């Protein structure tokens, strides 16, 4: 076998701490190596042309590139090798950047390790076999999880692109957090007025199936062919019949039910429609508050409903949807602000969250858009905003900046002045972070035109005194302590991954971080992809972001799905397990360990044997390690190939000890 070896300088990234010329020279001395050279940037156009040229001129059978991580450029070089006319799997990569040059400064030791890695790669390549991808059909339907603005945008873009969309929303209406906002920054336009029409589009789009009040139970399958079990939670109202007339709401005697849409400021009826623009505009019963559910008496809604839609016996219903791709857009939740005991979170009635304040500002909110203190309904004259509550605070395990809080606080300070002209607003901030288009101008307007008093420093405590609240903090610019007497305190609470996000991520088999946010495939170049093919993310599910960015990501995820579905067939990765039927004893241990359910039993001439479903196999290799017979082998990572690498490494160790 004739192998070519290409050692990349990566500028000074590798060449700075590895003697690349020496590595290339050593590679030449290996028996299978017919050609070796070092090259400035192997991934650049001249670099790739060099590889192609060498393969063609020397009639090489395979190539080893020693450069960066295969995650970054593995596919790049496989395409290069393929362009030279070889099978793309006749290629091996040695990671001498992340695994060598970036982690140590000792040039001699680095060069020695680079030599070892190249030797191992050559040894493996010598045992590589051409592999061929298979084609399989795609189900061109897409599942969107989460009906916030990101999910809505993704669903509409996919649907407009001609795809069938299944939109699953956990609560009884789509709209998400944006629907709860009164106005948006920096344009101060009515949030629900710009979102409402989009919500209606979702409801009316012929390509969109909406499951509200539903959650995903189970996700199986693989890119192009997912099977998803959706559990429709009982709403106790038959939505096929309900017209949203609201007769039941008016007559419901249980008027003190917690109003989740209004963030628990104010109460609602046990049977309710969350807000006037809700989609679907259907009533549902909160069984926890309903008198009928608690005592068996009442049943008034069933009596007044003109279309007989009420059904107290309703059970959860499971529907299975087949889709080819999934977009996760399940958003965020506010961090638990009650851990800030010094602010009296959860204890003092007039210390509220930013989202609760948003509901007080909203015309469709519990106070009809009049700012009233929750404790006594009085109009506050002094409002204090405390920023970075659950952002940039290591002490509560939230070291990251939630990004949008500076902006919504400025907006709320402006709106406060609009609502109550003789009011004063104070904003305790750490830094102002307003990097978006027209954002800094907006926060300045809050200060300069609306007279919001910005105090740079943290608040140490809030305590009630004489019907008002003393907010004590520090002004780090003036170097003094400050105390402000407030009528209302608004905590600008930071964001964390939505409740249950981690659970869902596990069902989707994608990674998430310590704060419940989903991990993108590459932080810069693959911002809406995940490491599971066919699963995409959009909006705050990936990290806190504002509306424009969420919408952009929704569209981006839709574009990715449309690109994926532009082909009729997908190529499967041939790096999958395969069973040597002669060796297999049918113990099925492999099937038990397979996390993807990709191995099933088959009968071959009266004997039980394992069979790999190639499209489902993810190439993790667990089965290979489990098989007592060594009968199941992961293609491209067979025992022989791995042992060859180990032997190549040990050979050099052996030389060292003997020499």
């Amino acid at each position: 076998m004739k192998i070519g070896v290409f050692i990349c300088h990566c500028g000074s990234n590798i060449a700075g701490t590895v003697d690349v010329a020496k590595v290339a020279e050593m590679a030449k001395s290996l028996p299978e190596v017919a050609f070796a050279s070092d090259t400035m940037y192997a991934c650049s156009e001249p670099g790739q042309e060099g590889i192609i040229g060498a393969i063609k001129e020397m009639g090489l059978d395979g190539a080893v590139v020693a450069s960066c991580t295969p995650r970054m450029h593995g596919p790049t070089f496989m395409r290069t090798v393929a362009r030279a006319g070889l099978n793309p799997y006749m290629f091996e990569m040695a990671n001498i950047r992340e695994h060598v040059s970036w982690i140590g400064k000792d040039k001699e030791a680095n060069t020695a390790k680079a030599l070892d890695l190249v030797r191992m790669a050559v040894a493996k390549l010598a045992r590589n076999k051409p592999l061929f991808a298979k084609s399989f059909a795609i189900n061109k339907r897409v599942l969107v999880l989460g009906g916030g603005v990101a999910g809505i945008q993704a669903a509409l873009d996919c649907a407009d692109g001609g795809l069938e969309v299944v939109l699953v929303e956990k609560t009884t209406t789509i709209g998400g957090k944006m629907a709860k906002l009164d106005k948006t920054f920096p344009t101060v336009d009515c949030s629900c007025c710009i979102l409402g029409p989009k919500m209606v589009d979702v409801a009316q789009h012929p390509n969109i199936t909406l499951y509200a009040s539903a959650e995903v139970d189970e996700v199986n399958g693989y890119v192009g062919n997912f099977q998803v079990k959706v559990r429709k939670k009982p709403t106790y109202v038959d939505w096929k019949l309900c017209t949203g007339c609201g007769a039941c709401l008016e007559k419901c005697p249980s008027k003190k039910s917690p109003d989740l849409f209004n963030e628990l400021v104010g109460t609602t009826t046990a049977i309710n429609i969350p807000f006037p623009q809700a989609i679907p505009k259907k009533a549902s019963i909160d069984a926890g508050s309903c008198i009928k559910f608690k005592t068996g008496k009442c049943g008034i809604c069933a009596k007044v409903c003109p279309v007989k839609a009420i059904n107290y016996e309703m059970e959860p219903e499971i529907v299975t949807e087949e889709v080819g791709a999934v977009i996760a857009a399940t958003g965020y939740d506010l961090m638990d602000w009650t851990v800030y005991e010094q602010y009296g979170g959860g204890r003092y009635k007039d210390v509220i969250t930013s989202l609760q304040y948003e509901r007080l500002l909203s015309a469709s909110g519990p106070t009809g858009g009049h700012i009233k203190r929750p404790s006594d309904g009085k109009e506050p004259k002094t409002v204090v905003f405390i920023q970075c509550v659950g952002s940039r605070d290591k002490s509560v395990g939230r070291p990251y900046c939630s990004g949008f809080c500076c902006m919504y606080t400025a907006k709320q300070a402006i709106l406060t002045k609009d609502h109550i002209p003789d009011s004063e607003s104070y904003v305790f901030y750490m830094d102002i972070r307003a990097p978006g288009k027209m954002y800094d101008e907006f926060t300045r307007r809050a200060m300069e035109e609306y007279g919001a008093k910005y105090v740079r420093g943290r608040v140490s405590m809030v305590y009630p005194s004489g019907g008002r609240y003393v907010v004590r903090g520090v002004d780090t610019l003036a170097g003094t302590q400050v105390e402000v007497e407030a009528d209302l305190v608004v905590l600008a609470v930071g964001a964390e991954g939505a409740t249950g996000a981690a659970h869902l991520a596990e069902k989707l088999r994608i990674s998430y971080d310590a704060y419940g946010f989903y991990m993108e495939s590459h932080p810069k170049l693959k911002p809406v992809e995940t490491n599971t093919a066919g699963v995409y993310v959009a909006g705050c599910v990936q990290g806190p972001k504002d509306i424009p960015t969420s919408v952009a990501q929704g569209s981006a995820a839709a574009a990715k799905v449309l690109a994926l579905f532009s082909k009729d067939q997908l190529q499967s990765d041939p790096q999958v397990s395969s069973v040597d039927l002669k060796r297999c004893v049918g113990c099925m241990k492999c099937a038990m360990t397979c996390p993807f359910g990709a191995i099933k039993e088959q009968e071959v001439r009266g004997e039980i044997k394992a069979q790999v479903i190639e499209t489902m196999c993810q190439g993790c290799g667990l089965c290979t390690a489990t098989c007592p017979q060594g009968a199941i082998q992961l293609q491209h990572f067979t025992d022989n190939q791995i042992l060859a690498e180990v032997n190549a490494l040990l050979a050099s160790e052996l030389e060292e000890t003997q020499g």
Partner: protein
Amino acid sequence: MTTLRYAYYPGCSGLGTSKEYDMSTRAVCEALGMELIDITDWSCCGSSPAHTVDDRLAGALSARNLVQAGDIEGVDAIITPCPSCLANLKTARHRLQKPEFRAEVNKLLERPVHGDILPVKSVLQAIVEDVGMEELRYRVRTPLKGMSIAPYYGCIMNRPPKIMEFDSHENPMALDNILEALGATVAPFNLKVECCGASFGVARRDIVERLSGKLLNLAAENNAQAMVTACPLCQMNLDARQNQINVANSTNHVMPIFYFTQLIGLALGFSQSQMGLEKLVVSPRELLAGAAG
């Protein structure tokens, strides 16, 4: 009922400025089935100066007491009424888990620290956790009905939280719960963990007058008839200096400042003199007479 046994560390204030705290603690503990065995030949915990000068010296002062307490048979914990003693003992115990610190401290000690050290609790923590509110409520003979009292914890009882490991450091509830169990009304009081000015009474009286003044003002504003503390220094600043505070701030508070053990004692049926109430500077006589009538 099983008897709880503790090594008891009264601290210097307990024998001097806060004798009534010590008296009432001993009486109440006995009544609640807590046996206190005084640590033999205990010495000063280092109080507030030692740790500012040399942490090893401060460690050694407390370590000596911890070793002495280890001699007592059949106890599970050391308890002390004073938060300052508590902080020093707990901090020393915490630091002595590190072998290097232990070695340094042992150089200074005649009897070095070996092996495990008894856990340290405040009397407050022992009553809350070991006796429990249910038991306390059960033992109340004369409930403190009609008395509205502000619970004041002071700044070091629960801080730093990682070392003190008891109750919330921002919104502690131990005293609130005790008051409630005794049948008193808990006045809303949100400067629970504010500083009273501590030992600044000597060097900068104006600081105490300002800080303690705030505490009295808020308690009065929220219709508290008295305040309850768990710290000799807090008690002294609010009680003995109340007149100075009044003069400095042009106020006229007449706010009795109790130790929580005194209130427990009264509710359990002890007499006022058994609880050393005559030792308080601001007399609670009128308040107690009103409550009784």
